[in-house]
């Protein structure tokens, strides 16, 4: 890596206060580093305290710094048995990279490693030309996709963690990863001993996986007189979510969609039918009775469709893993030069990842830009610059380092 980057990283770590590196259960964590230009991660590190860690970072500033979500009796031991797993934080990861968004067309490209076919936007699962799956990507982020990631975090907290899991804001720690997404840590000891299976259930819950509407009341109890033992829009959790989704869908669908749902049963037209059903399911108590079985089956379909909108787009592997390495808050991300930062729930709305996470606030740098889409760091925008138009420009330090770290520019 270029000297200027190393210097900037070093300078940043020097300026940190040791409180900036504070971490719950510090002594019981394993730490891991990846140095610039090195392939293998240095693992199984442990430190006496934050000050000792700070000294280390100042001497050898890493490209990436991680800590274990798990707590161990002997974090420095590489043998899992002797390491002694005690427990692990419950963590959610939301990454803009995993969410298909429109803006990806503007800043992402992919290429098939087997036949060189390529394109823009979210990469296909297999190459449309040769059907192979070895696909390389060149991805960037923009305000739009980072906003989508932020919305997912809000959804996770406001729709799931607070109402369903009963967590308070104080038990939730949000962290911008310094690159493409957010981590969310649940600070609550009752979850720490859960094994993979227990954590998978939590991941499935927020992802809407494995949901069986018939276990939430979408169940015909008698064939003769089909009666739905309804979920109620006033119910909590998924039960209420399902009822609300049917209501919302029925309420907003246009007449073409309505025709699909409508089954002529009485002397009523579609609109009358819509009115009647909406009234039934918003009554208190809800009453889904008097509908045919075929009709109920249609609701079942709506409910399953609606799950997709309500589910939360997390990377489930992070939640399920009980020994995950997580980016250290207030460390620098080697692929962006941005700071991984903690954000309180109240500040999340205002938080600007491409501004507030800037670590190098002073100075400027002359760089030779090879190829970038339109990007922004802080108040400066640049690009798109195509490969054929590559050029030398002077930009604010943070933007320069950002492009260098992404491999799109080099210092002059």
């Amino acid at each position, binding site marked *: 890596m270029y000297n200027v980057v190393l210097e900037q990283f070093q300078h940043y770590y020097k300026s940190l206060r040791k409180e900036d590196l504070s971490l719950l259960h510090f002594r019981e964590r394993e730490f891991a580093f990846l140095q610039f230009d090195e392939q293998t991660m240095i693992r199984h590190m442990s430190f006496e305290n934050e000050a000792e860690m700070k000294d280390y970072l100042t001497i050898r500033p890493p490209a990436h710094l991680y800590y274990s979500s798990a707590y161990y009796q002997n974090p420095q031991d590489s043998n899992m048995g002797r390491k002694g797993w005690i427990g692990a934080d419950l963590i959610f990861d939301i990454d803009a990279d995993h969410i298909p968004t429109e803006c990806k067309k503007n800043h992402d490209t992919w290429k098939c490693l087997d036949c060189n076919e390529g394109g823009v936007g979210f990469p296909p699962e297999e190459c449309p030309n040769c059907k192979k799956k070895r696909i390389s990507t060149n991805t960037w982020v923009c305000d739009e996709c980072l906003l989508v990631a932020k919305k997912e975090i809000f959804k996770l907290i406001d729709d799931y963690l607070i109402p369903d899991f*009963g967590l308070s804001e104080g038990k939730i720690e949000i962290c911008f990863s310094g690159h493409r997404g957010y981590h969310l840590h649940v600070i609550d000891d009752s979850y720490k001993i859960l094994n993979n*299976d227990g954590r*998978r*259930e939590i991941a499935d819950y927020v992802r809407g996986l494995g949901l069986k509407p018939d276990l939430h009341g979408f169940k015909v109890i008698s064939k003769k007189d089909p009666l739905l033992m309804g979920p109620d829009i006033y119910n909590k*959790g998924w039960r209420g979510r399902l009822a609300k989704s049917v209501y919302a869908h029925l309420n907003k669908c246009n007449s073409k969609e309505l025709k699909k749902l409508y089954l002529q049963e009485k002397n009523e037209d579609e609109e009358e039918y819509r009115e009647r059903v909406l009234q039934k399911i918003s009554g208190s108590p809800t009453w889904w009775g008097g509908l045919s079985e075929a009709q109920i089956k249609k609701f079942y379909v709506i409910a399953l469709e609606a799950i997709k909108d309500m589910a939360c787009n997390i990377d489930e592997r992070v939640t399920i893993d009980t020994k995950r390495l997580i980016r250290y808050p207030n460390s620098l991300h080697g692929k962006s030069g941005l700071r991984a930062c903690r954000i309180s729930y109240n500040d999340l709305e205002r938080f600007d990842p491409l501004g507030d996470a800037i670590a190098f606030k002073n100075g400027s740098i002359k760089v030779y830009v090879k190829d970038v889409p339109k990007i922004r760091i802080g108040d400066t925008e640049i690009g798109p610059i195509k490969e054929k138009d590559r050029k030398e420009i002077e930009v604010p330090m943070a933007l320069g380092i950002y492009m260098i770290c992404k491999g799109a520019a080099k210092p002059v």
Partner: protein
Amino acid sequence: MVKMQKRVFLTKEDQANYPFLKEATNFVENFGVNLRELSIEDYPSIIPRATQWIQDNIEGNMFTTNIKDPDSDILAYPLALAFLFGLKKEWVINRFATSEQKRIKTLLLNENPEHIIEIAKSGFGWDLESININQEEAKFQFSISVANYLEIAPQFHSAEWKLINRYVDKGKVYLRNLEYARLLSGAAENKIKKRAMEEEVRKFELPEKFKPYLINITKIIEQKKDIYDEETPLIWVEEAKPPCVIAMLNDIESGKNLSHMARFTISTFMLNVGKKVEDVLELFSRVPDFDEGKTRYQIEHIAGEIGSKQKYKMPKCDVLRSFGLCVGPDALCEEVWYPLIYYRKKIEEMKKRPSPVPQEQSEELKKVRKRLQKNV
């Protein structure tokens, strides 16, 4: 919804019935009964109770505690565990734990809510709350915190125990009807299995002086091992296949491509129930992306004929579950942790069931089946 709970006290009898209670383990500790000391020889009346406990649990009879002398049974339990762990047989431990689960579940079904709450607290540190809500299809009696619920519920591998299919509100999961008993007894079962995996227990050797007491138990183990012991060889019985295997075979039948894990599972299963590499190969010749050379190599590897020379084991139920290969378990699935045990149990069940088919006819049937099997 938090109600003031009447505190109830757990009696000596409770401690004998529910040996996982804190009070019971404290009592035992005061007597210095633990794997290191086993000073229990000073209490000879307890040994027969301990062996009885194991015997009943292996045979699947419900062990009943002696209400006239609960102290003896409280002490008999840790001794029973010591014997059990000293026997060093995984299947015996699993069998013991499963029978304990059933025993405890039965007892819990007759307890009143105050008692149940106290048992959950003392045994597992769980905070159950008594509630009383009727939803159309279910009555909710208790709620439990999501975290406590998830310690146990995932191991029941069924859709209705999945968190997403539960009524969840403010960190609590609502338990329908009598589900509390399944959850608590499942936790008791888990405790035994977990203990068995601890370093101290795995290293434990039962002192010689106790061995004479285990003669009878060893005999029973010998009789039962055909069903439960993984080491006993198996033969192919078409009708005894577990649901997961049936589903995967159906997929092959209908020409679907199988995941790597599914192929591995089917291969290990077939090779474990007496099929040969050729049989498995023929089976896979039906999948669309069949590549004979590659497949043969893989199967021979799994069979232990090449490579590491070790026959691979079939994956356990919870592994299959996490790969989405466990399909809606039936009643027998509830009792097993390993598809091959399902298979063994099913065979045993079939032996017990008198065959309604007359002899000659069944010979004919066998032939037909044989032909069918070839086409499987």
